[in-house]
């Protein structure tokens, strides 16, 4: 997606095939699917974090942190893409920016907290070894 012309021609392919009502219906469906799938993926991650915390499983916590960091990388890439393709008068730019920033903020906190938990687990392990 290098320039506006390319984007227009790509998107324009379907313009004659679907009317606005149909487009909005499909678009809303796609949004619902995206949100449901995203929610499910985040739930998987949080569940692993919960289980790993309860079991004191540092390995799974490390893995969860990698997943959280990967989401940050992904949203940063998406942010860059959105900025690159932004049109000056685009009324949706603000909502997009806010959504992406919220997600980055969320995963940054999550990564930090998981890291803190991993450090605590390691310290507890060392302490137990020293006590024995």
């Amino acid at each position: 997606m290098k320039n506006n012309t390319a984007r227009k021609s790509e998107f324009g392919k379907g313009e004659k095939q679907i009317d606005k009502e149909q487009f909005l219906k499909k678009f809303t469906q796609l949004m619902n699917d995206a949100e449901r799938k995203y929610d499910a993926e985040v739930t998987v991650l949080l569940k692993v974090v919960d289980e790993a915390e309860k079991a004191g499983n540092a390995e799974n916590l490390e893995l969860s942190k990698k997943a959280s960091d990967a989401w940050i990388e992904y949203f940063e890439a998406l942010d860059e893409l959105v900025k690159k393709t932004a049109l000056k008068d685009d009324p949706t730019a603000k909502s997009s920016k806010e959504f992406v920033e919220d997600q980055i903020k969320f995963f940054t906190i999550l990564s930090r907290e998981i890291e803190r938990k991993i450090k605590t687990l390691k310290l507890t392990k060392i302490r137990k070894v020293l006590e024995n």
Partner: protein
Amino acid sequence: MVYSRVKKLGSDIKEVFADKPKKTDEGWIIDTYKGIIYRLNSSYQGSSEISSTDQGTVYQSGFSKRMGEGDTVTIEYNPTDKGYLVDYMNTRPASALVYAMVAGYLANTIGSLVTGRPPEDPANMLVTLFGMSVALNIGANRNYPKIESARIKKATGKLEEVYERLKKASDNEK
């Protein structure tokens, strides 16, 4: 910090937190972990200790998908319980993402009528949505714009790889 979802009915969510909500000059911080940075505003009625039921409006949230500005939050605190039950009464008709995107799409369509710009211009919200659909493997309809970004593809590949291991780890735990 232990957290467990105890109920999710429609848009209402009840959750239990092991840590006590903290009182700050800006209001109550319910939790700063796992996507929840809910602060109740200064109009919050209550003492420095959480009483049996307190209510306020969220003015800051770290994860807008689950709770956002303007949502009403009730804290039900039971000291004999194992945690702090937070009953979120989400007053928004649709979730933040869908709502923002529909609004964004409509604004774009209306905007195109005003500016004369063709509505088929992929607005940022569309780019965001299709970027999401790439990461989530939903498969955007061929009538919609394609996302062609090496950085997105790289980040998506990493997500897929980590998630495969994460799901295996989750299955092994069971």
